[in-house]
């Protein structure tokens, strides 16, 4: 079908979802869980980058390079056409903007999210030391009889009563702040946690790299784990500037924000979780050429990989290659409750997303 437009449109190339074998789900989880439990607010991605490197196959780890922006590159195969696959390392959170005389921390958001989800929740301040400093996101100062849903602002309490005591803990302006997080399995093949966006994308790249034989690739594939996506696609922009027009295609592997819940408007983006990865054919930053969407759908069908096609909101790293005319074939997996502490995925989608990335590297 060719009626993408602004309305949602989905198809499943493999028909009914085949029963997922436990092994791919288990492998996906073994990679995803440690990534989700690593912390890396935009600009402080080093712990996540370290986890990625640890999870790479040996051959890829040996070739991995970190550029001056902080992106991690793994090059596989040789020759044209060069294909770029990019997933981002960073997550939303806060950064310390000031330390008050009473030891409390003023904070500023890094990325877009509902601040009410962080209000009056536990906090971890990441100072660069091995162990973060625990604290709490304070409730708003005043509630009143008719409070609004969104707090006008709040601070972080680390249990100190002076600026000097807070600084003695290693906290400084620029230190990043998150909530504690944990990867938790839900019923069936579903799981919850925070920062599935975009640790699932990183997982798909790692799983694909584990399966690839770089000596058998017919062209060069560059896997990039990018930084600072949540604050303006900054890492990918640096990579795009370095590569310019060389790539034939770029594939941003990032969240397909799904309206698969009873509280979302159902006008578009209704990609059910558990029914396979999704081509982000149209989002807020790019439109994939329809011929490439069709070609990718054929590739997935040939490998019996379920694939949905749809449109959602949000931007993606691949769009930074647009100035050089590089087509952006963005893909994701359906995610419920994006940028919340309670994101939900289906691990079968994660495993199948890795299948698609592998197929792109090997066959497309």
């Amino acid at each position, binding site marked *: 079908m060719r009626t993408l437009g602004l309305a949602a449109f989905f198809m499943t190339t493999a028909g009914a979802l085949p029963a997922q074998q436990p092994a791919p789900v288990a492998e996906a989880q073994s990679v995803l869980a440690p990534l989700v439990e690593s912390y890396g607010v935009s600009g402080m991605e080093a712990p996540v980058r370290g986890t990625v490197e640890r999870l790479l196959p040996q051959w890829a780890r040996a070739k991995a390079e970190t550029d001056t922006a902080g992106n991690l590159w793994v090059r596989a195969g040789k020759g044209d056409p060069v294909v770029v696959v990019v997933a981002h390392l960073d997550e939303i959170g806060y950064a310390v903007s000031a330390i008050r005389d009473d030891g409390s921390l003023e904070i500023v958001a890094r990325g877009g999210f509902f601040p009410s989800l962080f209000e009056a929740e536990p906090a971890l301040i990441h100072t660069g030391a091995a162990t973060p400093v625990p604290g709490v996101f304070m409730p708003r100062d005043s509630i009143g009889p008719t409070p609004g849903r969104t707090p006008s602002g709040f601070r972080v309490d680390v249990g100190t009563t002076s600026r000097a005591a807070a600084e003695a803990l290693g906290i400084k302006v620029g230190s990043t702040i998150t909530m504690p997080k944990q990867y938790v399995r839900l019923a*069936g093949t579903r799981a919850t946690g925070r920062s599935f966006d975009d640790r699932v994308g990183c997982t798909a790249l790692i799983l694909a790299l584990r399966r690839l034989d770089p000596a058998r690739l017919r062209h060069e594939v560059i896997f990039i784990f990018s930084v600072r996506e949540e604050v303006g696609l900054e890492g990918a922009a640096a990579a795009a500037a370095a590569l310019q027009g060389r790539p034939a295609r770029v594939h941003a592997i990032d969240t397909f924000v799904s309206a698969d819940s009873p509280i979302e408007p159902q006008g578009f983006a209704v990609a059910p979780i558990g029914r396979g990865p999704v081509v982000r054919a149209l989002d807020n930053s790019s439109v994939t050429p329809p011929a490439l969407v069709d070609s990718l759908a054929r590739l997935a069908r040939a490998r019996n990989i379920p694939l949905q096609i749809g449109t959602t909101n949000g931007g993606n790293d691949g769009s930074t290659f647009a100035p050089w005319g590089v087509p952006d074939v963005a893909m994701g997996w359906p995610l419920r409750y994006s940028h919340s502490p309670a994101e939900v995925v289906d691990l079968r989608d994660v495993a199948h997303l890795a299948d698609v990335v592998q197929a792109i590297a090997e066959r497309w």
Partner: protein
Amino acid sequence: MKAPAGFVAVVLLLVSGTTTEPLCAQTVTAGELAVRLAGMTAVTGYEQAMVDTLLTLLPGAVRDRAGNAVLVLGSGPPRRLAACPLDETGFVVGRVRADGWLTLRRSPARAHLLGPLFDQQLEGQRVTVFTARGPLPGVVAVRSVHLTRGRGSLSQEPFTVDDAYVDVGAASGRGAADLGVGVLNPVALAKHPHRYGSDKLAAPWAGRRAACAALLAAARRAVAEPGKDSRSGSTVVAFVVEQQLSARGLLTLATSQGPFAESWIADDSVGARAVQAADSTPKLSAVGTSPRAALGQIHAWQISTAYPGTAVETVSLEQVEHTGAAIASWLRGETGR
């Protein structure tokens, strides 16, 4: 400093909501008990698991007809009461939808003392559904921020329980039922007691749990050292249910174990003030004069809290230890307070 690893360890220890692991009275402090109890859930009317744990932790304690955990120290008159409320305003499954999501009802229904943002703490957070088969993790749905962009401004009305859709990963109502989920299953925020600062403990209902921990530590010490009680008469130590609804646990003690010469309530400052003000509260006095009067003069051991009524209600573990020591001293008859 406390690290995520420690946080996870606490979660693993406490996520079941119940434990039968015995603790040695000499080695477990009130603060340690506070951390342990803060990881547990006791929704008003559904406190059984918490009471089971208390019965295990307090040798000689029994469950009374109201569901309270009760221990009697000494015998005969005069009788004194040392009690702590253990319930929390929480939620139960109100409906299992055909699509697998769960909707909720608050228990008790009114949460006027907790403020207009109490329910909002659920939105987008982890919860635990306590099914007949055990605790089940879930999340409360929240709109994806990306999908709100360019689609008009969001309502600024606070999130309420009627906005809550719980996702346990079930794809249908039957799938949820297969997981053991049913109407009336208690539901609460996932409890991850969080240590910060030099001695701070943050958790939902941390003040009330800490107060119960102080009483529990003192009672365990009294049981372990029976010869040190210099008081005549008897002291009833009780962990009472349904304080948030109708004070049924406390009033049942009054009618079944009273009259008491005096009653001491261990609670967070909000709860303690509420009980002390009960003389003028219709909820208690309307039951009749005898149940309330049977409690005698009411005093309080108060645990101070920061950020009360929130998911990071905070107590000082040092104060918990001091309160436990004060209660122990009172149980031995060394102090009047």
